[in-house]
Protein backbone atom coordinates (compact mmCIF):
# COMPACT_ATOMS: atom_id res chain seq x y z
CA UNK A 1 0.00 0.00 0.00
CA UNK A 2 1.43 3.38 -0.93
CA UNK A 3 1.37 6.53 1.18
CA UNK A 4 -1.73 7.99 -0.47
CA UNK A 5 -3.70 4.77 0.04
CA UNK A 6 -2.68 4.51 3.71
CA UNK A 7 -3.64 8.14 4.34
CA UNK A 8 -6.99 7.49 2.63
CA UNK A 9 -7.63 4.55 4.96
CA UNK A 10 -6.68 6.67 7.98
CA UNK A 11 -9.06 9.38 6.85
CA UNK A 12 -11.79 6.75 6.50
CA UNK A 13 -10.96 5.43 10.00
CA UNK A 14 -11.31 8.87 11.61
CA UNK A 15 -14.50 9.71 9.72
CA UNK A 16 -16.03 6.29 10.50
CA UNK A 17 -14.90 6.43 14.15
CA UNK A 18 -12.93 3.20 13.70
CA UNK A 19 -10.22 3.04 16.37
CA UNK A 20 -8.96 -0.38 15.28
CA UNK A 21 -8.52 0.73 11.66
CA UNK A 22 -6.74 3.89 12.83
CA UNK A 23 -4.28 1.74 14.80
CA UNK A 24 -3.86 -0.76 11.97
CA UNK A 25 -3.10 1.80 9.26
CA UNK A 26 -0.87 3.83 11.58
CA UNK A 27 1.21 0.67 12.06
CA UNK A 28 1.16 0.07 8.33
CA UNK A 29 2.45 3.61 7.75
CA UNK A 30 5.35 2.95 10.13
CA UNK A 31 6.14 -0.35 8.40
CA UNK A 32 6.08 1.42 5.04
CA UNK A 33 8.67 3.87 6.35
CA UNK A 34 6.39 6.93 6.11
CA UNK A 35 7.35 9.82 8.40
CA UNK A 36 5.16 9.32 11.55
CA UNK A 37 4.85 13.08 12.07
CA UNK A 38 3.46 13.44 8.55
CA UNK A 39 1.14 10.45 9.09
CA UNK A 40 -0.19 12.02 12.28
CA UNK A 41 -0.73 15.39 10.65
CA UNK A 42 -1.98 14.42 7.20
CA UNK A 43 -3.54 11.02 7.90
CA UNK A 44 -5.24 11.65 11.25
CA UNK A 45 -5.36 15.31 12.31
CA UNK A 46 -6.47 16.65 8.94
CA UNK A 47 -9.63 14.50 8.67
CA UNK A 48 -10.49 15.28 12.30
CA UNK A 49 -10.20 18.98 11.53
CA UNK A 50 -12.70 18.40 8.73
CA UNK A 51 -15.12 16.72 11.18
CA UNK A 52 -14.57 19.67 13.50
CA UNK A 53 -15.30 22.14 10.74
CA UNK A 54 -18.52 20.24 9.88
CA UNK A 55 -19.44 20.40 13.57
CA UNK A 56 -18.71 24.12 13.58
CA UNK A 57 -21.07 24.62 10.65
CA UNK A 58 -23.78 22.63 12.45
CA UNK A 59 -23.43 19.68 10.07
CA UNK A 60 -22.15 17.06 12.53
CA UNK A 61 -23.12 15.95 16.02
CA UNK A 62 -20.88 16.26 19.09
CA UNK A 63 -20.77 12.48 19.45
CA UNK A 64 -19.33 12.21 15.91
CA UNK A 65 -16.60 14.69 16.80
CA UNK A 66 -15.72 12.90 20.03
CA UNK A 67 -15.75 9.47 18.35
CA UNK A 68 -13.58 10.82 15.52
CA UNK A 69 -11.16 12.26 18.07
CA UNK A 70 -10.98 8.90 19.82
CA UNK A 71 -10.13 7.18 16.54
CA UNK A 72 -7.43 9.79 15.94
CA UNK A 73 -6.06 9.27 19.46
CA UNK A 74 -5.89 5.49 18.90
CA UNK A 75 -3.74 6.00 15.81
CA UNK A 76 -1.76 8.81 17.42
CA UNK A 77 -0.76 6.55 20.30
CA UNK A 78 0.92 4.16 17.86
CA UNK A 79 2.57 6.99 15.94
CA UNK A 80 3.73 8.88 19.02
CA UNK A 81 5.75 5.86 20.17
CA UNK A 82 7.49 5.84 16.81
CA UNK A 83 7.99 9.60 16.88
CA UNK A 84 9.55 9.31 20.33
CA UNK A 85 11.74 6.40 19.23
CA UNK A 86 13.22 8.57 16.50
CA UNK A 87 13.68 11.48 18.87
CA UNK A 88 11.33 13.55 16.72
CA UNK A 89 8.48 15.80 17.77
CA UNK A 90 5.22 16.84 16.15
CA UNK A 91 5.61 20.52 15.48
CA UNK A 92 3.48 22.22 18.09
CA UNK A 93 1.62 25.36 17.12
CA UNK A 94 1.60 26.41 20.75
CA UNK A 95 0.77 25.26 24.27
CA UNK A 96 -2.67 25.73 25.75
CA UNK A 97 -3.74 25.22 29.34
CA UNK A 98 -7.49 24.76 29.59
CA UNK A 99 -10.04 24.24 32.36
CA UNK A 100 -13.54 25.04 33.63
CA UNK A 101 -13.59 27.61 36.43
CA UNK A 102 -14.32 26.95 40.09
CA UNK A 103 -17.91 26.05 40.96
CA UNK A 104 -18.67 24.98 37.39
CA UNK A 105 -18.72 21.33 36.45
CA UNK A 106 -19.58 21.64 32.75
CA UNK A 107 -17.04 19.90 30.58
CA UNK A 108 -18.57 19.20 27.15
CA UNK A 109 -17.69 22.55 25.55
CA UNK A 110 -14.23 22.59 27.08
CA UNK A 111 -13.54 19.04 25.86
CA UNK A 112 -14.63 19.90 22.32
CA UNK A 113 -12.37 22.95 22.25
CA UNK A 114 -9.45 20.88 23.62
CA UNK A 115 -10.04 18.24 20.93
CA UNK A 116 -10.14 20.80 18.15
CA UNK A 117 -7.03 22.57 19.44
CA UNK A 118 -5.15 19.26 19.46
CA UNK A 119 -6.33 18.49 15.93
CA UNK A 120 -4.97 21.88 14.90
CA UNK A 121 -1.53 21.14 16.27
CA UNK A 122 -1.70 22.67 19.74
CA UNK A 123 -0.34 20.88 22.77
CA UNK A 124 -3.14 20.96 25.33
CA UNK A 125 -2.99 20.47 29.10
CA UNK A 126 -6.51 19.92 30.38
CA UNK A 127 -6.97 20.80 34.06
CA UNK A 128 -10.54 19.46 34.14
CA UNK A 129 -13.59 21.11 35.72
CA UNK A 130 -14.20 23.08 38.92
CA UNK A 131 -10.59 24.34 38.88
CA UNK A 132 -9.78 26.83 41.61
CA UNK A 133 -8.26 30.21 40.79
CA UNK A 134 -5.12 29.24 42.74
CA UNK A 135 -4.75 26.04 40.70
CA UNK A 136 -5.00 27.97 37.41
CA UNK A 137 -2.30 30.39 38.57
CA UNK A 138 -0.07 27.59 39.78
CA UNK A 139 -0.50 25.66 36.51
CA UNK A 140 0.38 28.76 34.46
CA UNK A 141 3.49 29.22 36.58
CA UNK A 142 4.48 25.57 36.14
CA UNK A 143 3.60 24.91 32.45
CA UNK A 144 4.24 28.40 31.05
CA UNK A 145 1.59 27.93 28.32
CA UNK A 146 1.16 30.35 25.43
CA UNK A 147 -2.59 30.47 26.02
CA UNK A 148 -4.87 29.91 29.01
CA UNK A 149 -8.44 28.85 28.17
CA UNK A 150 -11.07 29.57 30.84
CA UNK A 151 -14.46 27.95 30.40
CA UNK A 152 -17.62 28.97 32.31
CA UNK A 153 -21.07 27.87 31.29
CA UNK A 154 -23.13 29.91 33.70
CA UNK A 155 -23.63 33.58 34.37
CA UNK A 156 -23.10 32.75 38.03
CA UNK A 157 -19.63 31.28 37.47
CA UNK A 158 -18.30 33.54 34.72
CA UNK A 159 -17.09 36.05 37.29
CA UNK A 160 -14.47 33.45 38.22
CA UNK A 161 -12.88 34.16 34.83
CA UNK A 162 -12.29 37.71 36.04
CA UNK A 163 -10.88 36.39 39.33
CA UNK A 164 -8.35 34.19 37.52
CA UNK A 165 -7.19 37.12 35.37
CA UNK A 166 -6.87 39.34 38.46
CA UNK A 167 -4.93 36.61 40.27
CA UNK A 168 -2.59 36.19 37.29
CA UNK A 169 -1.93 39.93 37.38
CA UNK A 170 -1.21 39.85 41.12
CA UNK A 171 1.16 36.92 40.61
CA UNK A 172 2.99 38.90 37.90
CA UNK A 173 2.04 36.32 35.24
CA UNK A 174 -0.60 38.15 33.21
CA UNK A 175 1.83 39.42 30.55
CA UNK A 176 3.28 35.92 30.08
CA UNK A 177 0.07 34.29 28.87
CA UNK A 178 -2.83 35.10 26.53
CA UNK A 179 -6.24 34.42 28.02
CA UNK A 180 -9.11 33.13 25.93
CA UNK A 181 -12.62 32.81 27.38
CA UNK A 182 -15.28 30.25 26.50
CA UNK A 183 -18.80 29.29 27.54
CA UNK A 184 -22.41 30.11 26.71
CA UNK A 185 -22.67 33.45 28.57
CA UNK A 186 -19.34 34.84 27.32
CA UNK A 187 -19.46 37.84 24.97
CA UNK A 188 -16.87 40.11 23.34
CA UNK A 189 -17.93 42.85 25.75
CA UNK A 190 -17.12 40.56 28.66
CA UNK A 191 -13.65 39.91 27.17
CA UNK A 192 -12.99 43.65 27.16
CA UNK A 193 -14.52 44.23 30.58
CA UNK A 194 -12.29 41.73 32.36
CA UNK A 195 -9.21 42.36 30.21
CA UNK A 196 -8.99 38.95 28.56
CA UNK A 197 -7.45 38.58 25.08
CA UNK A 198 -10.11 36.74 23.09
CA UNK A 199 -13.11 34.48 23.30
CA UNK A 200 -14.35 31.34 21.61
CA UNK A 201 -18.06 31.74 20.96
CA UNK A 202 -17.98 28.18 19.56
CA UNK A 203 -15.26 25.54 19.08
CA UNK A 204 -14.27 26.80 15.62
CA UNK A 205 -13.89 30.42 16.66
CA UNK A 206 -11.92 29.30 19.73
CA UNK A 207 -9.40 27.62 17.43
CA UNK A 208 -9.30 30.55 14.97
CA UNK A 209 -8.74 33.02 17.81
CA UNK A 210 -6.12 30.80 19.48
CA UNK A 211 -4.21 30.68 16.18
CA UNK A 212 -4.49 34.47 15.90
CA UNK A 213 -3.14 34.93 19.43
CA UNK A 214 -0.17 32.70 18.64
CA UNK A 215 0.61 34.71 15.51
CA UNK A 216 0.46 37.95 17.51
CA UNK A 217 3.05 36.65 19.98
Amino acid at each position, binding site marked *: MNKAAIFRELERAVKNFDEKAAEKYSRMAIEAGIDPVETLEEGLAKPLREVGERFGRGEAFITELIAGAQAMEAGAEVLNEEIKRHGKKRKSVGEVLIGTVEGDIHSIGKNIVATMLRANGFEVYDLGVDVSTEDFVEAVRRHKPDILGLSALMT*TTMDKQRKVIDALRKAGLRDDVKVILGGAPVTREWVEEIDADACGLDASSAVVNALKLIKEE
Partner: protein
Amino acid sequence: MYSIETEQRVIDVDDVKIGGIPGENPTVLIGSLFYRKSPLVTDEEEGKFDRARAEELITRQDELSDITGNPAMLDVEGSTPTAVENYIDFVAERTDSPLLIGGSTPDIRAAALRMVKERGLEDRVIYNSLMPECSKAEVEAILDAGIDTAVLLGYTFSDLRPQGRVEALKKLIEETENLGLSNPLLDTFVMDVPSLGIAFNAMKEVKAKIGLPAGCGPHNAIGMWRGLRKKMKIKSKRPVVASVNAFATASGADFLLYGPIEAADDVFPAVSMVDAAYGFNQVQLGKRLTREHPLFKIA
Protein backbone atom coordinates in the same frame (compact mmCIF):
# COMPACT_ATOMS: atom_id res chain seq x y z
CA MET B 1 -41.02 -6.27 22.04
CA TYR B 2 -38.37 -5.63 24.65
CA SER B 3 -38.42 -7.90 27.68
CA ILE B 4 -36.02 -8.72 30.46
CA GLU B 5 -35.48 -11.65 32.78
CA THR B 6 -33.20 -10.20 35.45
CA GLU B 7 -34.91 -9.46 38.75
CA GLN B 8 -35.61 -5.74 38.94
CA ARG B 9 -35.52 -3.53 42.01
CA VAL B 10 -38.45 -1.12 42.23
CA ILE B 11 -37.76 2.13 44.07
CA ASP B 12 -40.66 3.86 45.79
CA VAL B 13 -40.63 7.64 46.10
CA ASP B 14 -43.65 8.97 47.96
CA ASP B 15 -45.80 6.10 46.61
CA VAL B 16 -44.53 6.44 43.04
CA LYS B 17 -42.99 3.21 41.85
CA ILE B 18 -39.92 3.52 39.63
CA GLY B 19 -38.51 0.45 37.90
CA GLY B 20 -39.54 -3.10 37.15
CA ILE B 21 -39.92 -5.21 34.05
CA PRO B 22 -40.82 -3.06 31.00
CA GLY B 23 -44.60 -2.77 30.97
CA GLU B 24 -45.00 -3.55 34.67
CA ASN B 25 -44.93 -0.07 36.19
CA PRO B 26 -45.81 2.95 34.04
CA THR B 27 -42.89 5.12 32.98
CA VAL B 28 -42.40 8.05 35.34
CA LEU B 29 -42.45 11.33 33.40
CA ILE B 30 -40.48 14.26 34.71
CA GLY B 31 -41.08 17.70 33.23
CA SER B 32 -38.60 20.54 33.64
CA LEU B 33 -40.11 23.77 34.83
CA PHE B 34 -37.60 26.57 35.27
CA TYR B 35 -34.98 25.40 32.79
CA ARG B 36 -32.46 27.77 31.19
CA LYS B 37 -34.16 30.23 28.83
CA SER B 38 -37.63 29.08 29.93
CA PRO B 39 -40.24 31.56 28.64
CA LEU B 40 -41.76 31.46 32.13
CA VAL B 41 -38.76 33.03 33.81
CA THR B 42 -38.51 36.81 33.74
CA ASP B 43 -35.48 37.14 36.03
CA GLU B 44 -33.07 34.19 36.22
CA GLU B 45 -30.97 35.70 39.03
CA GLU B 46 -33.87 36.51 41.35
CA GLY B 47 -36.04 33.61 40.26
CA LYS B 48 -38.98 35.72 39.13
CA PHE B 49 -41.47 34.09 36.80
CA ASP B 50 -45.02 34.05 35.44
CA ARG B 51 -46.73 32.36 38.38
CA ALA B 52 -50.12 31.92 36.72
CA ARG B 53 -48.61 30.19 33.69
CA ALA B 54 -46.37 28.02 35.87
CA GLU B 55 -49.38 26.90 37.88
CA GLU B 56 -51.29 26.17 34.68
CA LEU B 57 -48.45 23.97 33.39
CA ILE B 58 -48.12 22.06 36.67
CA THR B 59 -51.87 21.47 36.83
CA ARG B 60 -51.95 20.27 33.23
CA GLN B 61 -49.12 17.81 33.86
CA ASP B 62 -50.96 16.46 36.90
CA GLU B 63 -54.15 16.13 34.84
CA LEU B 64 -52.35 14.21 32.12
CA SER B 65 -50.83 11.98 34.77
CA ASP B 66 -54.34 11.21 36.10
CA ILE B 67 -55.66 10.56 32.61
CA THR B 68 -52.83 8.28 31.44
CA GLY B 69 -51.64 6.66 34.65
CA ASN B 70 -48.04 7.76 34.04
CA PRO B 71 -46.77 9.25 37.31
CA ALA B 72 -45.58 12.84 36.98
CA MET B 73 -42.66 14.55 38.67
CA LEU B 74 -41.15 18.00 38.36
CA ASP B 75 -37.53 18.82 37.72
CA VAL B 76 -36.77 22.15 39.37
CA GLU B 77 -33.62 23.95 38.30
CA GLY B 78 -32.35 27.39 39.19
CA SER B 79 -29.31 29.44 38.29
CA THR B 80 -28.84 31.13 41.68
CA PRO B 81 -29.55 30.15 45.32
CA THR B 82 -32.32 32.79 45.52
CA ALA B 83 -33.93 31.53 42.33
CA VAL B 84 -33.93 27.90 43.38
CA GLU B 85 -35.42 28.80 46.77
CA ASN B 86 -38.24 30.74 45.10
CA TYR B 87 -38.97 27.91 42.69
CA ILE B 88 -39.04 25.17 45.33
CA ASP B 89 -41.19 27.32 47.56
CA PHE B 90 -43.69 27.74 44.73
CA VAL B 91 -43.88 24.18 43.38
CA ALA B 92 -44.06 22.53 46.81
CA GLU B 93 -47.40 24.32 47.33
CA ARG B 94 -48.80 23.67 43.86
CA THR B 95 -48.41 19.90 43.50
CA ASP B 96 -48.05 16.72 45.54
CA SER B 97 -45.85 15.17 42.85
CA PRO B 98 -42.28 14.23 43.74
CA LEU B 99 -39.67 16.84 42.89
CA LEU B 100 -36.22 16.50 41.39
CA ILE B 101 -33.90 19.13 42.71
CA GLY B 102 -30.20 19.87 42.51
CA GLY B 103 -27.95 22.62 41.30
CA SER B 104 -24.94 23.21 39.15
CA THR B 105 -22.90 24.99 41.83
CA PRO B 106 -22.33 24.14 45.52
CA ASP B 107 -24.17 27.26 46.74
CA ILE B 108 -27.27 26.52 44.63
CA ARG B 109 -27.25 22.91 45.84
CA ALA B 110 -26.88 24.05 49.45
CA ALA B 111 -29.83 26.45 49.09
CA ALA B 112 -32.00 23.76 47.48
CA LEU B 113 -31.18 21.21 50.18
CA ARG B 114 -31.81 23.77 52.91
CA MET B 115 -35.30 24.37 51.45
CA VAL B 116 -35.98 20.64 51.36
CA LYS B 117 -35.16 20.35 55.05
CA GLU B 118 -37.03 23.49 56.08
CA ARG B 119 -40.17 22.54 54.19
CA GLY B 120 -40.03 18.87 55.20
CA LEU B 121 -39.94 17.68 51.60
CA GLU B 122 -37.36 14.90 52.12
CA ASP B 123 -39.72 12.04 51.30
CA ARG B 124 -40.79 13.44 47.98
CA VAL B 125 -37.49 14.74 46.70
CA ILE B 126 -35.04 13.04 44.38
CA TYR B 127 -31.60 14.57 44.02
CA ASN B 128 -30.72 15.31 40.38
CA SER B 129 -27.94 14.40 39.86
CA LEU B 130 -24.67 12.86 41.00
CA MET B 131 -21.98 12.59 38.37
CA PRO B 132 -18.79 10.52 38.25
CA GLU B 133 -16.13 12.11 40.46
CA CYS B 134 -18.77 13.91 42.52
CA SER B 135 -17.41 14.92 45.90
CA LYS B 136 -17.96 13.06 49.14
CA ALA B 137 -19.30 16.36 50.54
CA GLU B 138 -22.03 16.51 47.89
CA VAL B 139 -23.28 13.00 48.71
CA GLU B 140 -23.11 13.70 52.44
CA ALA B 141 -25.07 16.94 52.03
CA ILE B 142 -27.89 15.03 50.28
CA LEU B 143 -27.99 12.41 53.02
CA ASP B 144 -27.87 15.11 55.72
CA ALA B 145 -30.93 16.70 54.12
CA GLY B 146 -32.73 13.38 54.60
CA ILE B 147 -32.85 12.45 50.90
CA ASP B 148 -32.17 8.82 50.08
CA THR B 149 -32.93 8.75 46.33
CA ALA B 150 -30.69 10.29 43.69
CA VAL B 151 -30.25 10.17 39.94
CA LEU B 152 -26.77 8.93 39.07
CA LEU B 153 -25.57 10.20 35.69
CA GLY B 154 -23.48 7.88 33.53
CA TYR B 155 -21.53 10.81 32.16
CA THR B 156 -18.44 9.67 30.32
CA PHE B 157 -16.49 10.56 27.20
CA SER B 158 -13.69 8.05 27.48
CA ASP B 159 -15.78 5.13 26.21
CA LEU B 160 -18.68 5.91 23.89
CA ARG B 161 -20.07 2.37 23.90
CA PRO B 162 -23.10 1.44 26.07
CA GLN B 163 -20.69 -0.58 28.22
CA GLY B 164 -18.80 2.66 28.93
CA ARG B 165 -21.97 4.16 30.43
CA VAL B 166 -22.66 0.97 32.40
CA GLU B 167 -19.14 0.84 33.83
CA ALA B 168 -19.28 4.54 34.80
CA LEU B 169 -22.59 3.90 36.57
CA LYS B 170 -21.34 0.77 38.35
CA LYS B 171 -18.44 2.75 39.77
CA LEU B 172 -20.73 5.58 40.82
CA ILE B 173 -23.19 3.16 42.48
CA GLU B 174 -20.36 1.62 44.48
CA GLU B 175 -18.97 4.99 45.58
CA THR B 176 -22.32 6.46 46.60
CA GLU B 177 -23.48 3.24 48.24
CA ASN B 178 -20.36 3.24 50.39
CA LEU B 179 -21.32 6.72 51.56
CA GLY B 180 -24.83 5.56 52.44
CA LEU B 181 -27.03 6.38 49.42
CA SER B 182 -29.64 3.65 49.25
CA ASN B 183 -31.82 4.42 46.21
CA PRO B 184 -29.96 5.14 42.96
CA LEU B 185 -31.81 5.85 39.71
CA LEU B 186 -29.53 5.35 36.72
CA ASP B 187 -29.46 7.95 33.94
CA THR B 188 -27.59 6.70 30.87
CA PHE B 189 -26.78 10.22 29.58
CA VAL B 190 -28.19 11.52 26.33
CA MET B 191 -26.21 14.31 24.71
CA ASP B 192 -27.26 14.40 21.05
CA VAL B 193 -28.97 12.23 18.42
CA PRO B 194 -26.17 9.65 17.94
CA SER B 195 -25.87 9.30 21.72
CA LEU B 196 -29.51 8.14 21.90
CA GLY B 197 -28.40 4.75 20.59
CA ILE B 198 -25.69 4.51 23.22
CA ALA B 199 -27.99 5.63 26.04
CA PHE B 200 -30.93 3.40 25.08
CA ASN B 201 -28.75 0.32 24.74
CA ALA B 202 -27.10 1.25 28.04
CA MET B 203 -30.56 1.32 29.70
CA LYS B 204 -31.15 -2.23 28.52
CA GLU B 205 -27.73 -3.32 29.78
CA VAL B 206 -28.22 -1.56 33.12
CA LYS B 207 -31.51 -3.35 33.65
CA ALA B 208 -30.06 -6.68 32.52
CA LYS B 209 -26.82 -6.47 34.51
CA ILE B 210 -27.64 -4.33 37.54
CA GLY B 211 -31.43 -4.56 37.85
CA LEU B 212 -31.87 -0.98 39.06
CA PRO B 213 -34.29 1.58 37.57
CA ALA B 214 -32.90 3.14 34.40
CA GLY B 215 -33.85 6.21 32.41
CA CYS B 216 -32.47 9.25 30.65
CA GLY B 217 -33.23 12.73 29.30
CA PRO B 218 -33.98 12.05 25.63
CA HIS B 219 -35.03 15.62 25.00
CA ASN B 220 -31.36 16.67 25.18
CA ALA B 221 -30.94 15.12 21.75
CA ILE B 222 -33.66 17.28 20.27
CA GLY B 223 -32.37 20.46 21.90
CA MET B 224 -28.96 19.85 20.33
CA TRP B 225 -30.31 18.91 16.88
CA ARG B 226 -29.58 21.91 14.68
CA GLY B 227 -30.42 20.18 11.40
CA LEU B 228 -34.05 19.76 12.40
CA ARG B 229 -34.65 23.44 11.93
CA LYS B 230 -31.88 24.32 9.53
CA LYS B 231 -32.16 21.48 7.03
CA MET B 232 -35.73 20.27 7.36
CA LYS B 233 -37.18 23.72 7.97
CA ILE B 234 -39.32 22.23 10.72
CA LYS B 235 -40.33 24.85 13.22
CA SER B 236 -42.11 22.60 15.67
CA LYS B 237 -40.11 20.14 17.69
CA ARG B 238 -43.30 18.55 19.06
CA PRO B 239 -43.48 15.35 16.96
CA VAL B 240 -39.84 14.49 17.57
CA VAL B 241 -40.05 15.23 21.30
CA ALA B 242 -43.03 12.87 21.55
CA SER B 243 -41.36 10.18 19.46
CA VAL B 244 -37.97 10.31 21.15
CA ASN B 245 -39.68 9.78 24.51
CA ALA B 246 -41.77 6.93 23.07
CA PHE B 247 -38.57 5.43 21.64
CA ALA B 248 -36.93 5.64 25.08
CA THR B 249 -39.95 3.97 26.68
CA ALA B 250 -39.81 1.19 24.11
CA SER B 251 -36.14 0.73 25.07
CA GLY B 252 -37.15 0.04 28.66
CA ALA B 253 -36.92 3.43 30.39
CA ASP B 254 -38.37 3.46 33.90
CA PHE B 255 -38.18 7.24 34.15
CA LEU B 256 -37.74 10.02 31.62
CA LEU B 257 -36.65 13.60 32.03
CA TYR B 258 -38.84 14.25 29.03
CA GLY B 259 -37.97 17.91 28.50
CA PRO B 260 -39.73 21.24 29.11
CA ILE B 261 -43.05 20.76 30.89
CA GLU B 262 -44.68 22.59 27.96
CA ALA B 263 -44.29 19.29 26.04
CA ALA B 264 -46.49 17.33 28.48
CA ASP B 265 -49.45 17.27 26.08
CA ASP B 266 -47.32 15.55 23.46
CA VAL B 267 -45.25 13.27 25.66
CA PHE B 268 -47.83 11.72 28.02
CA PRO B 269 -50.00 10.23 25.21
CA ALA B 270 -46.97 8.88 23.30
CA VAL B 271 -45.37 7.27 26.34
CA SER B 272 -48.63 5.92 27.77
CA MET B 273 -49.31 4.25 24.41
CA VAL B 274 -46.03 2.30 24.60
CA ASP B 275 -46.64 1.47 28.27
CA ALA B 276 -50.13 0.16 27.44
CA ALA B 277 -48.69 -2.01 24.66
CA TYR B 278 -45.96 -3.42 26.92
CA GLY B 279 -48.44 -3.73 29.78
CA PHE B 280 -50.69 -5.97 27.73
CA ASN B 281 -47.70 -8.11 26.92
CA GLN B 282 -47.02 -8.50 30.65
CA VAL B 283 -50.67 -9.41 31.30
CA GLN B 284 -50.39 -12.14 28.68
CA LEU B 285 -47.31 -13.42 30.49
CA GLY B 286 -49.36 -13.68 33.69
CA LYS B 287 -48.43 -10.45 35.43
CA ARG B 288 -51.18 -8.64 37.34
CA LEU B 289 -51.10 -4.93 36.72
CA THR B 290 -52.65 -2.22 38.85
CA ARG B 291 -55.85 -0.64 37.49
CA GLU B 292 -53.92 2.66 37.41
CA HIS B 293 -51.75 1.31 34.57
CA PRO B 294 -52.07 3.17 31.22
CA LEU B 295 -53.39 -0.08 29.71
CA PHE B 296 -56.60 0.34 31.68
CA LYS B 297 -56.82 4.11 31.49
CA ILE B 298 -56.11 5.41 28.00
CA ALA B 299 -58.61 3.44 25.85
